[in-house]
């Protein structure tokens, strides 16, 4: 039973991650390869506050999200102005910079040694989430709330404008819209919610190290997004997260040795991704086209 709850919690974390990625890739047509970097920044900043202060969850979450959002502004302003490939390169570079910092700045991040003993989240500063049942319930609620938030955004005038920019940015500009700012907002929101997932992850697993926040992880998240589907429906990202979280568990039931299982899983995802790009580039449940 506990095993199933664990899967459920990881699923919720990935739902939040993939939903956040859909904001940039699916809605604003900005292909990012640095979601894991924001995920990691959220995890590490969250860890700092969880270990140093006795604050309620909501406060820590807001701090983490805001701080991560601010780091996103560093790269988004420049990259968002430039043509697609430069944006990808910028996010790629950012991902590698963050990983290098997490790995090498041993004084602050403990580098490859990792940070153990991360305390649990305290709701309202008093109730500590100690059991896995509590974490499960909490993360499900959070995932549902986040999904509702994104759904609302997608159907708002802002979401409509993102769709317009996605389709024809030049026309949107000559209709008086500051497309660069609007795209930067999308990037900001995406970073913010990725960091929220990082916070939950850090406190649930209670140990973090840089290997969870590599470029491979960014690619993994993008793969999940494309499998599920990009665009203006929240079900795409949810299904995508479900596929990538549950599939490896099914594989391990067949009894493959762990090392090979990881690689095999990655090979399967790679093949799925290629096949999808041929026959259904918007993903299983997606409704947007990559430009």
């Amino acid at each position, binding site marked *: 039973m506990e095993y199933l709850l664990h899967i459920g919690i990881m699923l919720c974390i990935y739902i939040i991650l993939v939903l956040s990625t859909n904001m940039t890739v699916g809605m604003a047509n900005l292909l990012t390869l640095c979601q894991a970097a924001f995920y990691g920044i959220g995890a590490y900043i969250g860890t700092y506050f969880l270990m140093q202060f006795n604050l309620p969850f909501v406060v820590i979450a807001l701090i983490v999200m805001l701080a991560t959002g601010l780091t996103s502004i560093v*790269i988004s302003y420049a990259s968002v102005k430039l043509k697609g*490939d430069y944006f990808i390169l910028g996010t790629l*570079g*950012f991902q*590698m910079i963050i990983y*290098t910092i997490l790995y090498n700045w041993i004084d602050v991040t403990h580098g490859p040694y990792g940070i153990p003993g991360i305390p649990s989240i305290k709701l309202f500063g008093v109730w500590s989430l100690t059991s896995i049942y509590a974490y499960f319930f909490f993360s499900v609620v959070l995932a549902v709330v986040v999904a509702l938030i994104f759904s609302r955004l997608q159907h708002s005038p802002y979401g409509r404008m993102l769709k317009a920019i996605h389709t024809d940015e030049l026309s949107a*500009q000559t209709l008086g819209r500051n497309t660069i700012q609007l795209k930067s907002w999308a990037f900001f929101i995406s970073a913010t919610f990725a960091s929220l997932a990082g916070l939950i992850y850090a406190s649930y697993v209670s140990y973090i190290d840089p290997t969870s926040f590599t470029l491979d992880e960014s690619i993994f998240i993008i793969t999940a997004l494309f499998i599920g589907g990009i665009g203006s429906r929240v079900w795409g990202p949810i299904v995508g997260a479900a596929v990538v979280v549950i599939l490896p568990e099914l594989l391990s039931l067949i009894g493959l040795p762990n090392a090979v299982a990881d690689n095999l899983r990655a*090979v399967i995802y790679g093949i799925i991704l290629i096949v999808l790009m041929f026959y259904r580039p918007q993903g299983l449940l997606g409704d947007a086209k*990559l*430009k």
Partner: protein
Amino acid sequence: MIVQFVINGVISGILYSLLAIGFALVYNTTKVFHIVAAAIYVFAAYMFYLFTATFGLPIIISALVAVILTMGLSLLTDVSVYRPLKKRKASNNVAMIASIGMMTVIINLLAMFFGDEAKIFDSNGSPFLLGEFIITAKQMWQLVIGAAMLILFLLFISVSNWGIRFRALSTDSMLYETLGYNNSNTRTMVFLMSGAFIAIASCLTVYDRGVDPHIGMDVLINAIVAMILGGTGRFGTCILGGISLGVLQALAIYQFSSNWQNAVTFILLLILLFLRPQGIAGYKQRTV
């Protein structure tokens, strides 16, 4: 003392240039962000290792075999994925995602087959002394073969028929087709050459540093930054960018430590993105 570092920097810069050329050949002509180049790099390295360590072939033969096999793999990525996608009018971003997919498949298959631990090559040959500066035997290989390939490439791209066609295709692919040049023959040449350069860069590098499944992306990003630094949209500028990057990194290592070598790359990347996206000698790109 610092000159020693600069020498090392020039040599590693030559290796960046080779990989940058391998990437730029595909990127400039097809406009696809050829991320699978990282996997092609790793493939070449493992083939080199396989034929040297496991089959015991002499180094030169091994390298040649690795280069030929890699050229084949490179062409395969075009024929099996990029070209069919282009026929379906898929956008460049879709091709890039497919490229990421290919990269994942190739690297993980290699990891499954060869294992995750690093493999190294035996060292042989004594170092060369240039006055008071040392160049190791392996570095000598890198320097001589690398520089020779770069010079050959410069000649090729400026003077030969194919070179001119590559440049034409990079500038205006629609015009290129309407002028009657066979796009798919040119693409074949592009991918074969790209594979060759990636393989040469890879073999020369891993001969010195060893191979594990994860070396690809890191070195590719360095090569891409080198390509942009030198100048976008052109081929010869990869050499300028590669060597500049190598020297800058060497100076950083001299000043700080080797941990922050990659920091140079990324800071350069940010500077280029913010201030000068076309690099030193590149063609200006339109925004939006």
